[in-house]
């Protein structure tokens, strides 16, 4: 994060303070409406479609993306946009019109819950464990990113920055639950779009528009038209070869992300109607078009203006430092913090949902013989939110050792995306998939992704090995699940009632969590 001078004017501090106060007020406002676990985890199923869509997008885009994504675009060009374009929209339609209605009508809170009902408890536990590790690590990474950002902009000590962020996010996430998280996300999206929009306008104006940008970049040594192409040839040393982008990212990774990401699905499940849930996903699909334009294009503009930046992640901080006047710097700071907090609060709420729903709730029922009461669930939800946040804050400094946090997150995602999608698809669409088939597919799939990540460039042509890891782990998990299912006993039609596709979509909506 070199490049930001840290000299903010008074107006910048006023804007930052106003933003923080606004977030805290909006978030805390919803505390008075929280009376049950449904209110806390699903916003009382009252969310309108526009809030769902906006929350999904801003939760997806964190400060890491703003810095490292723009830095990657500085280096690699427009191909970076594939992660938000082809890597989002076909999958969003699949999620909106296949999986979301299915989850909605099956009455599930979480994906591990569905996998437990469809397959067995072992599958539920393993999947919940993998998701919890991923989410906890992600929250830690985001808190560390906050520390790096605040250290760079305000000169704060890293630990101070971590705990300030923890305190602010905790104040509204603990009190207001999903409703507070979503509504602050709406505000944060607006702030983020306005801030990055201003940076885009200034950057493109300075570089001379699109024609000026292409002229300046193509004049640089070792640069070619590939910088301005979305689809790049599949050759040794290529960062984002087109088969990886289209077949792995476009089909496997993105679908697994949008149908299996608790943070995304939970927003849709909190909708006031099934129509709002679907429409919310479409709003997210529309808004995703803007992300590369607002985030990656400034990174490319920085390449035209400052061709010798090292590291490339300095692109956005350099643009802010050199181009933005007082006032707008404060707005950009608010935009960064908005992106950061929106991701932290989303993953935090989802992490707690999974822990409470898939780990604690079954244990509680087994020990006490009765389901978890709404009041106790709410209290535990709040305590767990605080606990997870503190745990993530304590672990965050460990990520100081990592150079590329974007790769860490993609690696974490690749550990379970392919196997999850495989057993999910078979579980929903194939009656013959058995409990042990699903479990075997998940276990072997996760083990395979670990091995393939270790092998990395010893096997795969691209440095972005996670593209291929997800692709192959999906097919292997699919094959293993099918093979084991064929030699094990299937569930009866009565046991599958309400779990497979047609039987769910043709029946009225189920309600509430199932222990």
């Amino acid at each position, binding site marked *: 994060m070199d490049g930001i001078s840290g000299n903010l004017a008074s107006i910048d501090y006023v804007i930052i303070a106003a933003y923080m106060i606004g977030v805290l007020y909006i978030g805390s406002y919803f505390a008075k409406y929280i009376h049950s676990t449904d209110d806390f985890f699903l916003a009382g199923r009252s969310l309108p479609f526009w809030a769902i869509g906006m929350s999904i997008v801003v939760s997806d885009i964190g400060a890491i993306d703003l810095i490292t994504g723009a830095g990657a675009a500085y280096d690699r060009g*427009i191909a970076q946009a594939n992660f938000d*374009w*082809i890597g989002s*929209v*076909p999958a*969003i*339609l*699949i999620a*909106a*019109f296949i999986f979301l*209605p299915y989850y909605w009508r099956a009455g599930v809170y979480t994906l591990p819950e569905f996998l437990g009902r469809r397959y067995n408890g072992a599958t539920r536990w393993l999947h919940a464990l993998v998701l919890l*590790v991923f989410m906890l*690590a992600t929250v830690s990474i985001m808190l560390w990113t906050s520390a790096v950002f605040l250290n760079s902009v305000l000169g704060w000590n890293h630990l101070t920055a971590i705990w300030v962020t923890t305190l602010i996010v905790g104040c509204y996430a603990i009190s207001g639950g999903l409703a507070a998280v979503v509504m602050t996300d709406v505000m944060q999206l607006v702030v983020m779009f306005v801030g990055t929009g201003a940076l885009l306008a200034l950057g493109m104006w300075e570089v001379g528009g699109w024609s000026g940008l292409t002229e300046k970049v193509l004049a640089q040594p070792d640069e070619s038209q590939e910088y*301005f*192409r*979305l*689809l790049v*040839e*599949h050759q040794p040393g290529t960062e984002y*070869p*087109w*088969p990886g*982008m*289209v*077949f792995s990212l*476009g*089909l496997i990774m993105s679908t697994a992300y949008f149908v299996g990401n608790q943070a995304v699905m939970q927003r849709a499940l909190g909708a006031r*109607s*099934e*129509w*709002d*849930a*679907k*429409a919310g996903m*479409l709003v997210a*699909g*529309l808004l995703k*078009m803007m992300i590369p334009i607002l985030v990656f294009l400034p990174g490319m503009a920085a390449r035209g203006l400052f061709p010798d930046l090292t590291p490339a992640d300095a692109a956005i901080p350099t643009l802010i430092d050199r181009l933005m006047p007082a006032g707008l710097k404060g707005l950009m700071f608010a935009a960064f913090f908005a992106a950061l907090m929106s991701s932290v609060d989303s993953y935090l709420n989802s992490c707690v949902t999974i822990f409470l729903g898939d780990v604690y709730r079954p244990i509680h029922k087994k020990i006490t013989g009765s389901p978890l009461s709404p009041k106790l669930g709410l209290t535990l939800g709040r305590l767990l939110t605080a606990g997870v946040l503190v745990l993530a804050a304590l672990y965050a400094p*460990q*990520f100081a*050792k*990592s150079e*590329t946090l974007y*790769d*860490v997150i993609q*690696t*974490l995602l690749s550990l379970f995306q392919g196997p999850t999608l495989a057993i999910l698809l078979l579980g929903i669409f194939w009656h013959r998939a058995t409990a042990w088939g699903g479990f075997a597919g998940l276990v072997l799939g996760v083990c395979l992704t*670990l*091995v393939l*990540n*270790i*092998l*990395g460039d*010893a*096997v*795969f*042509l691209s440095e972005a*090995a996670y593209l*291929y890891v997800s692709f192959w782990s999906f097919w292997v998990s699919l094959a293993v699940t099918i093979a084991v299912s064929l030699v094990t006993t299937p569930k009866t039609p009565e046991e599958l009632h309400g779990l497979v596709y047609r039987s769910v*979509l043709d029946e009225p909506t189920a309600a509430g969590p199932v222990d």
Partner: protein
Amino acid sequence: MLANIALIGLAAEGGWWEEFCAFLRQVLGPPLKSFHEPIDQWLGSLPMSVAMVCAIGLFVVAGAWVWTLRREFIFRGAPDHQWWRDLRLWSMVVLLPYIAVYLLLGR
């Protein structure tokens, strides 16, 4: 990547983990590489027009599929059946900019 995996606490950093990774790369690397290499070569030989067809085809197929969904399913949960609540239309509104941008910037 190895440090990333160790970093997230899946395994302790240090001698035995690095030795294990080196062992895996030595044993599994060559056979898996020889399996994946012909695939890489075939993919590399394909013209970029194939890449364009595949990429844009993904959006087009998704859009075509949406139009096969039943009207009753599309409007389920909506307060009324006004044309502007038809999510099939909105799906097209979402897809068209992406198709346009891939046509313009794909190759």
